[in-house]
């Protein structure tokens, strides 16, 4: 019998600063490779949108690469790649994150270019139109031509009836075609205030040099009003909801959503332990039962993600040929009931904790992983320093916690079920 895995108390060291305009800067030194990861977390996402302009946060993520005052169209990418760097970005319901990866020699260039686009983005109508085509293509690829993407969108639109989490991050197709220049400018003013941003620099740097560059380039950007608070609170669900999609496919899909709390919910560590017991690794309960023993599905996916507003416990399954989503549902509900009814054996609970703690280390392997983790903790959990307490929070979860929380979140009235039923013939307009 193997004992619990001990963790070091201090997992990561950070130098923390707040500029006079309200921008938060987190700096982590790591000199293993001569490179830097620079992550900018803007606290704006699809939750800050409204019907008619859904997807505009994500569209903006694209526009931020299309030219500003000092560095014109294409220049952000051209200059960056010429200096040995590359970039990416992602948008979620809660945040828009810009990720820059580059050799340390490009550090000042990156501060200059980031400041330029945060302060002085340009809005060329021709570029806006061309970018609409790009985003439409992205949507066609990730939603229309993907059974998973199609069903996931329907699931969320059904699970939420009031809160903005109901619409897709990429936006409804009609909104992508329709937003106006005024919509874009308003969104820029709302989301891209320096006081609405957490910047993380991780890698081959010293805190002094980063801070000096931040003061030179980012501090002069004036602060503005941050996005207005999201007022709508999703009302409690009153009974099971179901949605069905029929489209050509070889295999059925099944997805489920249960409402849970936000990242600040004191039970969030319990959600993570439940996630691991049910879906973490091949030894997890659902993998063993559904994939290996009953062979109802090809894979088990889902779990929890930290969110600013109350989020979801998700499950998704690619159903095997010849099997029905209903069979999977029945087995799943039995497992969820069992979790609420019987205490998790001590060894199984310890296994889940070991998996979660090893997962923390995996996120610390790269400077990019550390930058992402620091920003995520700062934005979602209130402080980067919570990383150092995360192992202890997981360690404290008891078998009784797991039972209590499972009983709270998995009743049938709290769930939404989405199924994709394969059809041989359907009219899908191009």
């Amino acid at each position, binding site marked *: 019998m*193997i004992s619990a*895995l001990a963790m070091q108390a201090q997992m990561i060291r950070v130098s923390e600063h707040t500029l006079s305009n309200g921008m938060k800067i987190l700096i982590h030194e790591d000199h293993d*490779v*001569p*490179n830097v990861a620079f992550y900018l977390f803007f606290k704006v996402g699809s939750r800050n949108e409204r019907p008619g302009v859904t997807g505009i946060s994500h569209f903006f993520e*694209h526009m931020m690469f299309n030219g500003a005052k000092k560095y014109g169209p*294409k220049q952000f*990418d051209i200059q960056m*790649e*010429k*200096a*040995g*760097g*590359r970039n*990416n*970005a992602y948008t979620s319901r809660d945040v828009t994150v810009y990720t820059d*990866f*580059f*050799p340390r*020699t490009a550090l000042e260039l990156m501060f200059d270019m980031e400041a330029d686009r945060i302060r002085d983005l340009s809005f060329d109508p021709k570029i806006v139109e*061309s970018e609409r*085509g*790009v*985003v439409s*293509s*992205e949507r*066609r*690829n990730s939603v*229309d*031509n*993907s*059974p998973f993407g199609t069903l996931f969108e329907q699931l969320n639109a059904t699970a939420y009836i009031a809160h903005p989490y109901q619409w897709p991050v990429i936006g409804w197709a009609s909104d992508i075609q329709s937003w106006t220049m005024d919509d874009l400018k308003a969104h820029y003013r709302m989301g891209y205030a320096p006081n609405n941003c957490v910047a993380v620099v991780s890698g081959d740097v010293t805190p002094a040099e980063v801070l000096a560059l931040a003061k030179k380039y980012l501090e002069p950007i004036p602060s503005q009003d941050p996005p207005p608070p999201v007022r709508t609170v999703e009302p409690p669900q009153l009974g099971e909801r179901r949605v069905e999609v029929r489209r*050509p496919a*070889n*295999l059925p899909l099944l997805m489920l959503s249960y409402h849970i709390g936000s990242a600040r919910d004191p039970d969030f560590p319990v959600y993570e332990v439940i996630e691991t017991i049910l879906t973490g690794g*091949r*030894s997890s309960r659902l*993998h063993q039962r559904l994939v*290996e023993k009953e*062979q109802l599905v*090809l894979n088990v996916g889902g779990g929890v993600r930290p969110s600013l507003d109350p989020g979801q416990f998700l499950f998704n399954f*690619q159903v*095997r*040929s010849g099997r029905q989503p209903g069979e999977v549902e029945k087995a799943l509900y039995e497992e969820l009931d069992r979790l609420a009814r019987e205490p998790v054996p001590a060894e199984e609970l*310890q*296994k889940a904790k*070991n*998996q979660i*703690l*090893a*997962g923390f*280390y*995996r996120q*610390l*392997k*790269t*400077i990019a992983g550390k930058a992402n983790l620091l920003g995520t903790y700062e934005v979602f959990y209130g402080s980067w320093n919570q990383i150092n307490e995360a192992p202890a929070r997981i360690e404290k979860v008891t078998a009784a916690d797991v039972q209590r929380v499972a009983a709270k979140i998995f009743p049938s009235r709290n769930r939404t079920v989405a199924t994709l039923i394969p059809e041989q013939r*359907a009219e*899908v307009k*191009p």
Partner: protein
Amino acid sequence: MKLLLPLLLMSAFLPMSAQVRLPEFTREQLPNGAVLLLLPRHDVPLVSVRAVFRGGAESEPPGYNGIAAITAELMRRGAGKRSAAQIDNDLDFLGAELSAGANRQSAYFALEFLSRTAPEAMAILGDILAAPTFPEEEVRKVLAQAADRVRAAKDNPGMAVGRYFQGLFYPAGHPYRHSGAADEISVARISREEIVKYYRRMACGKNLILVAAGDFDPASFAALARRTASALPAGEAFQPPQAGQLRFERPRLLLVDKPDATQTYFRIGMPGIHRRHPDRISLLVANTLFGGRFTSLLNDALRVNAGLTYGANSILELDRLPGAIAINSYTPTATTVQAIDLALEVLQRFLRTGVSAEQLDSARAYIKGNFPTERLETSDQLCNVLADLELFGLDRSDIDTFFQQLDSLTVESLNAAIRRHFTESNLQFCLVGNASAIEKEVSKYAPAMKVIPVKSEGFAPPEF
């Protein structure tokens, strides 16, 4: 997400950068022929291990596509005294992660575990490599899953186009025609008996490369690793097949009909090079400029300027045998011809005007700048680098002189290499999309054209 980055590429820069070097490692050949490569480094308290068997797709008997990966998967499903479920449980308890699979020239096991659990984790790996039991029930299950994975792949045209492309590009009998992926036909044919036979032939000391990088004490870990590798018999070293340079007599077009698709996914290929080819460095630079990064010619034209797609890139395959250079993108059904015409125009311009000194500098900087975080930052990456060097018969100078080799390129030498390898003639087109909407228009690219339904078995078209 802004762009799906092209497979395989390294990227970025340092203006006056010093040469990067591979950290020190040890190489030892064991009495059974296995090669042991160890690279201790103390960053996070994790150890990465790769057990690599030479062979992969190249070693699959005709008609048994996918048997290398299926055998690797089954080796972890029952070994020594442990059942599949026990192996899963024991690895998860350690917080370890194991993946098993195969590529064109090898089958691999990638294991990562917390340093302090090394004896337990290596004992499990040792059983998987040397004492798999291939339980009948697990064999049936894995084969049935493989069949459903093929069905799922055909529901996702973005995933399927790469497999159909290989079936078009590589001739019958070529090991890369299936590239180690199972299909409906091979899955029906593979049996436990064939799997055991294949395992006995390939899983031997003379084919094994065992690599570890990470947080370990070299002396005590070497003892563990030797024990793991020595449990295998010496066996017979796999002799990989030979294949000449690919040549095409005429352009061909394979159109896979998926009537519900709203976009056309396309890949356009020409003959490329192998991993040890002297033009590799030139083509890394050329491919970076052509379609290997965001500002590449293809992405700039199709995405940034025309808004026809979310992404356009080019793929430079670098395997043991010569592979493909391929343009890769997708676009709405209605703009299929517009996008393909534009991609071909970009290719034509690239051939006609070549690259400038400024472009060479930029690509060189991009490759150098991204190299450390893509190849040398984590223990997993270092394991992959060491395993590849051994697999391809290269030594550390491949990494240690990489920047110098980039620096030695000139505009003239680069453009000459581009003219040697890039071509507009006899291109091989693979499209997955709604055939009834595009069939007529796309026939202009190649008089030799075949249309097959996505429902037909396998991924390889009949010869044409």
